[in-house]
Each structure stands twice: as C-alpha cells, then as structure tokens.
C-alpha cells in the first residue's frame, strides 16, 4: 500500500522509534492518541532555548529577557498560524484539560461573583433551570468540568446520545439544545470512537439559541488541517503533546470578543493590569489567562512541532492517516470475534480505532501486543460513559500518526491472533 508520507524517512527523525522493547523487539508505537512521540527538531528547539535564551518573559529589561519573550511570542504566532488564528487569540495552558476548565470556570466564577454584586458578563452567569449540553462521547476532560459547573451553579447537564455505529444522534438536537441552553461543548474527533463530529452544525444550533459553543479539538488539530475560526465555535481547546510537541503545554483559542468577556481563571502575576491590596484589575487576553511563569520552553518546542507538521503538510498527514485507518478497519473486520467500537467505515473518522475481542479482556489483548513490541492503550480511554454506552468495560485502541505504516498494523493484528490462540477463544 502506497502511503502519502515517507514513513521510513520520518521515523529517522524520532529517536525513540529506534529503540526496542520486551527483549529486542522493535517498538511499534500505536498509542499516539494518548501522546505522540517527538522529533529531534522539537527536542533541539527546547534545548537551544534553555542554552541560549532562558529568562523570565514579559518582565525583564535585559537582553536574555528580550530574547526569551521573543521566543515565546514568536512561538505563539506560529502556533496561531497553524490553526488559522490571530496570535492574540491563543492562550497557553498546561494541557487541553486546563483549557477546558478555564472555559468551565468562566461560568462558575462569573456566577459566584455576580451573586456577590460584581458586574460580570451575563452570558457566563448560570442558574437552576439553565442547561449545559455535551455528548455521550466526551473525554472526561470535557465532561467532569461541566458536571462541576452544574454542582456549583444548579445548572443541568444534558448530552447528545451516541448511536450503535458510534455517531452522534442529532435528530433531537433542536430539543436538546433549547432556550435554557447556555453553553454547548462537544468533542471534534472522539479519542475512543474515532468519530469526527459535525461540530459546525452543533455550534450553529448553540448560537441559534444564544448559547456559547466550545469544541474539544484535542484529537483533530494534530491529525488534519483545522482552521479554528471555521469550526463555528466560540472557544476551542487542545494539547501540544499529542501533536509532536512537549508535555506540559495546551492551548485555548477564543473569539476575541468572547475571551475579552471572560473573567480570569488562575490569577497572580503577569495577568494583571494594576494590583492593590484591596482589589486588582486584569490585563486583556491572552495574558489575562496566563498567570505565573509560563511554559516558555514548551511553547518553543511546540512551535518547532508545528513547523515540522507544516513541512509534512497537514493535508498529507490527514490523507496518510485516512489510508492507515482504512487499512486497520479492514484488517480488524477480517478477524473472527473482533468488534469495532465506533464507526466501521472510514468516513468522517480519524485514526483512533477501538475494538473488543470476544472472550478476551482488553488488558489481556494489550499484554499480547506489548509482548510483540506493540504499544496500544487499553482501558476506558478517559471516556468511561462511552464504554458503558457500548456495554463494554474497556477497549483496546490502536491509534496512528505520521510515523506509522501498514506494517505496524500488521504486527498488531498478529498480536491479536496470538492472544486469541493462547486463550483458546
């Protein structure tokens, strides 16, 4: 099978892919939906920052501080450009989870402040009777924060159901998202099912009832060209470590008007305008949301990652993974006793392929794959309610990226067969 990316060449850029595991077996990394591996250029960029420019950003008047600030802000510019955003509409966080919490806390913070007489944007003030809408395929990061908001404000959580073939049930969208709805937050591409959701349609419905729209783009931005402003959302969160970048950095994009209306989340240095003992005022976004010493080296590393991805071409990255996913779906469908959890076809679908094997627990499947050097994830993938929806305690998930080819899938398939054979199922 001829793939759009030259995997042999790409693999040379990833030192970890040269290593062996479990007694000299070449590493077959099929766990990129959990976290991706990092090319040398990312590691070099981080290191070069520390070795030449490291200093506090936005605060010092010396040359290092200038260079560090420049490195940080140039990283923001390149990362913004990668998703078609304006530089100042990108907020750096530690991960997507913080990004989504930042949004959720805008609601609970505004509600609490309003109750004590502060003037806040009424869009963020919730009360019993209000509803928040998510889906049944959310990662915990886009579910638990909203449960917390409900617990703190009395609002009610609703969710869009998932069909047997892993698609959102949108027939009753107009009744689910109604006049009571204040915010709708949905995952763009499911990390467990692989489904790519029609977020534009859902965001449009949110806006039709005056609700704010949020998209969790953790699994889409790393794998396909995404223009955040074209999703129809007000706010979009994602992580750097899943897109070849370092651990410890995430992003939140927001429409400038919405960001400007949001109260701060984490407060402290760098996010203020003036501070008195009695009260403080806050800087404009993105700084308002970046309290404390930021993840500077991580931003620099992530900028190198988006440069790397840009050079590969996100169109080609998407096509590559589409081809691989098709291959994986076909090979899995051929196996006896294997049930795919999620769409069986390759339409509107990304490269996270979950499955269960009749008579075998995913942990045991994963162990056999591991024994062959194949790294996959087993468990509920932080989407436990989705597992329940499909009546499975957990799944085994293969997930691909730019450094995978069909031979990786082949090794995984052999591992599944070996597990079936060993357990006699």
């Amino acid at each position, binding site marked *: 099978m001829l793939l759009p990316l030259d995997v042999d060449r790409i693999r040379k850029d990833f030192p970890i892919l040269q290593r062996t595991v479990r007694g000299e077996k070449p590493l077959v990394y099929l766990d990129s939906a959990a976290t991706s591996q990092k090319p040398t250029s990312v590691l070099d960029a981080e290191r070069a920052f520390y070795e030449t420019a490291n200093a506090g950003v936005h605060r010092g008047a010396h040359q290092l501080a200038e260079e560090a600030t420049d490195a940080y802000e140039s990283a923001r510019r390149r990362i913004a450009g990668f998703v078609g955003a304006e530089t100042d509409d990108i907020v750096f966080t530690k991960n997507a989870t913080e990004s989504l919490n930042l949004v959720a806390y805008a609601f609970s913070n505004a509600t609490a402040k309003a109750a004590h007489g502060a003037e806040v944007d009424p869009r963020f003030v919730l009360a019993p009777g209000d509803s928040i809408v998510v889906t049944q395929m959310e990662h915990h990061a886009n579910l638990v924060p909203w449960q917390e908001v409900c617990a703190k404000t009395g609002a009610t959580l609703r969710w869009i159901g998932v069909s047997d073939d892993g698609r959102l049930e949108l027939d009753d969208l107009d009744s689910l998202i109604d006049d009571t709805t204040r915010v709708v937050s949905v995952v763009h591409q499911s990390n467990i099912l692989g489904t790519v959701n029609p977020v534009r349609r859902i965001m449009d419905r949110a806006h039709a009832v005056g609700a704010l729209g949020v998209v969790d783009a953790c699994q889409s931005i790393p794998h396909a060209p995404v223009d955040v402003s074209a999703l129809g959302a007000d706010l979009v969160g994602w992580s750097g470590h899943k897109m070849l970048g370092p651990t410890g950095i995430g992003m939140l994009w927001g429409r400038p008007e919405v960001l400007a209306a949001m109260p701060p989340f984490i407060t402290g240095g760098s996010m203020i305008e003036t501070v008195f003992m009695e009260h403080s005022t806050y800087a404009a976004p993105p700084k308002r949301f970046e309290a404390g010493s930021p993840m500077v080296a991580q931003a620099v590393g992530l900028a190198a990652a988006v440069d790397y991805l840009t050079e590969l071409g996100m169109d080609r990255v998407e096509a590559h993974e589409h081809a691989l996913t098709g291959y994986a779906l076909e090979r899995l469908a051929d196996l006896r006793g294997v049930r795919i959890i999620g769409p069986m076809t390759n339409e509107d679908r990304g490269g996270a392929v979950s499955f269960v094997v009749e008579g075998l*627990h995913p*942990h*045991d499947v994963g*162990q056999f794959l591991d024994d062959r050097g194949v790294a996959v994830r087993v468990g509920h993938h932080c989407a436990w309610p989705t597992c329940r929806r499909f009546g499975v*305690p957990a799944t085994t998930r293969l997930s691909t990226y730019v450094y995978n080819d069909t031979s990786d899938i082949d090794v995984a398939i052999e591992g599944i067969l070996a597990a079936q054979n060993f357990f006699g199922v």
Partner: protein
Amino acid sequence: MDVESLYQDIILDHYKHPRGRSLIDEPSGESHQVNPTCGDEVTVQVSLDDDGRLVIGYEGQGCSISQASASVMSEMVSGAAPADADTVRQAFVELMHSKGAADPDEEVLGDGIAFVGVAKYPARIKCALLPWMALQDAEAKAGIGPDQEGTSTS
C-alpha cells in the same frame, strides 16, 4: 521476560474456572473496588461463621489477572481465621511489590504463587491486588481484624 511468564496455567485455570464465585447472604462487610485505569471491578463480601472463620463472597468483571486473583483469594481465605487470611494477604501484597524477584512460599500463598510473573508488569499489579484490597476493606467494614478478640482461633 515474556508473556507466558505472566499467564501461568494456574492463572488461566482460575480465570476460566473461577472458584466460589458468588455473593453471600447478609454479609457483615462488603467492598466494591474499581481500577480507574481500565475499569476492572470486584466486589468482595465477608462474614464469619460460628467458628469465627471467614465466609467469602465475590463477583467481578475484568481481565484475567484481576479475576483469577479474586478466585485464588477466595480459595485461600474462605474458611480461614482472619489472622491467617491476613498473613496470606500480606504475603501476596509483598509478592506483588517484589518486581518479580521473589521466591514465593507455596505453603502460605497456595495458587497465589502463580502471580509471581505479574510483579514484573507494573500496570498489572493493580489488577492482581484489586480483590485483596477489597477483602481488606470489607473486613474493615465488618469490624473483622487479625488481632480481634475471639476472631482468631489460631
């Protein structure tokens, strides 16, 4: 190190043919334990018979390791005095933390010795320990302890 050292025959046998897997009536203590990473679940119930010996009920779903461990646990401690059960539990916990280097005592652990290979796979240790944690918790809830007056006859 390979996968066969993990899945010893004894484990597979307990997994496929779990011993004493059912719940009991009116347990004096019960504990439901979950492994949040993978969703493995096990419920363990305890009470004491007239001789002060443990009566165990259990149920669960999950991987071969957690379910076989529950079966072995039930086999080893059903009918045992709490103090003896505690000795077994402690030996099992120790085995799991041995990184696979231990030479477990079959006298104490019975079929539990088959889990020696599990200790080499950190992600599976939690699976193996799950029923034993449930046992400890259920006993605590029932007020059954190794040092407890009248409960230990050994």
